[in-house]
């Protein structure tokens, strides 16, 4: 795989939340943590649109740049992962992330955060692939099993695309040509730096 990428086709997303549910189930995500969420624009009004959002695994990842303990790393596929053993729960990645992806269980006194949790592109973490320790901290490692992220696999309308950036964008381009409208690939430019696409 080249560069891992997500794309949500807003012309197709019907806000069924299958991706959210699939993610929660696959990784046994605790209450209050949402690695993926669906945002609806102009809910209940003509022209309503929905977009499923999670960590986009940015090319020049802001979270990586600001983490004070430098706990992020990038896999060969361009997936942005982090080590929960190193994370101190400072919340800085959330302040830098354009998509609001990092999540925190509240832990400790006052409002202090626990170790950060976010979408892993179903690629686990630094532990051994599919070990119980990896599953417990980061969820299942589907990439190691040769599978793509569960959210996109489960998408009822195939609005959410996940995979190699080139594949994803060519599928999307074909669709746009076929239907003749709706060529906005939301978030793509912000995450992967091609400003023409945003």
């Amino acid at each position, binding site marked *: 795989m080249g560069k891992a990428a997500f794309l949500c086709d807003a012309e197709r997303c019907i*806000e069924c*939340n299958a991706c*959210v549910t699939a993610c929660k189930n696959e990784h046994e995500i605790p209450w*209050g943590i*949402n690695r993926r*969420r*669906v*945002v*609806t*624009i*102009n*809910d209940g*009004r*003509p*022209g309503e*649109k929905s*977009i499923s*959002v999670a960590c986009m695994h940015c090319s020049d990842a*802001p979270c990586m*740049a*600001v*983490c*004070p*303990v*430098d*706990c992020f790393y990038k896999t060969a596929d361009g997936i942005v992962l982090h*080590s929960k*053993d*190193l*994370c*101190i*729960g*400072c*919340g*800085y990645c959330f*302040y*830098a*992330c*354009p*998509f*609001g992806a990092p999540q925190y269980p509240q832990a*400790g*006194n*006052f*409002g*202090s*955060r626990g170790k950060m949790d976010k979408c892993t592109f179903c690629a686990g973490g630094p532990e051994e692939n599919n070990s119980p320790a990896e599953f417990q901290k980061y969820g299942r490692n589907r990439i190691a099993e040769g599978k793509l992220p569960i959210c996109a696999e489960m998408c009822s309308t195939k609005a959410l695309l996940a995979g190699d950036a080139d594949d994803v964008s060519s599928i999307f381009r074909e669709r746009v040509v076929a239907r003749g*409208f709706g060529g*906005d690939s*939301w*978030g793509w*430019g*912000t995450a992967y730096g091609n400003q023409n696409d*945003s």
Partner: protein
Amino acid sequence: MPRSSERARAAEPRPAARVPSPRFERRRKRRLRVAIGALSLSVLLLAVTLASFVTMADAQSVRPPANAVTNSTPDATGMESVPGKITQPPARADLWRFVGGDRGPDEEGFTTTVSIPNKLSATLVQPFGEEWRLLRRGPLPEYGLIIPAAMILALAAFYLIRGRIRIEAGPSRNRIRRFGGFERFGHWLLAVSFVALALTGLNLLYGREYILPLIGHEAYSLTAWWGKWVHNNIAWAFMLGLVLIFVMWVGRNIPHRRDLVWLMKGGGLFSKHSHPDAGKFNAGQKLIFWSVILLGASLSLSGIALLFPFQTGLMGKTFAFFNDIGLSLSFIGIDVSQPVTALQEMQYQTIWHAAVALVMIAIIIAHIYIGTLGMEGAFDAMGSGDVDLNWAREHHNLWVDEVSARTSRRTPAE
């Protein structure tokens, strides 16, 4: 006995019974009034702070304003328009600019919603994160090094030129009480907590660059984890210390005309034989006092906002206030007429907290210098609490006069 701490130790043996003069009584009452006033002021400030928790940042609402377009004809969706209610549909390009984060919801009447409980997550893109990242990776740590470094250089230059400021008349054998036990407790509570907060804070700002490469990821992460714990918890000691010194010393730190003279003479710091008049606190100390109080209060407020994420709206209120009085912050790239989102609130607070802390660190470096290495006899004031009488005469002559006048009134002639 609030003022008993200043009894001159050098004085004759104390008489068995002390009858304070009426004048002394009046002054004592006045000081008491100032102290009570200060205490109620700080309680009031605390109450205001707590009250601001309750009111969440107004700007975080994702609902459209009352005048927003709430009914619009669709574009290319085939729905019929309702006569009489037709308004221009927002152009599609606008919609995509909006969800790309370029516009606020209020501007175009767009709304975003989520069905999960965390309503803050309805924001699709927050472009300010990029600015925050640039600030945190660029100017903040850069100026953060320059300001304290400039202070250290200035002090080193001062030391080389002026040397240690000696007691001109030489040490006397007599000592005079300057700070009582409780005053020193307040000072050291503030001082120790400040140093702990400064070190753990600097660790988070500079550690990744300067400490992590030395000790490795695991050890550094552990340091940062405990540093965060210490920082979050010691903050309360700092706030308590701040309230204590404020209440104890504010009465003595009201600016006075003689402070101007003191400042014009550079406090006598730059010339060997000049000792401008000063009371218990000279103008330099008053400046330190007020900087610590103001910067410390600001640090406490921003710190509380960071300890309780998304609970306060102080930055938004401050900007709204600036907007009301027509003060523009456009020269630092802040448009005060725009609402501040709950997330921006936090982002501004982290930057502000660090910037104020770095300035305060520079000021405290100077304070530590003059209280230890820079001036002979100064440390005793906060060490044993008793200072050399000659030192006191040179640097706080009016205070010495005041204390000895009081003592001699209290001590009838033999």
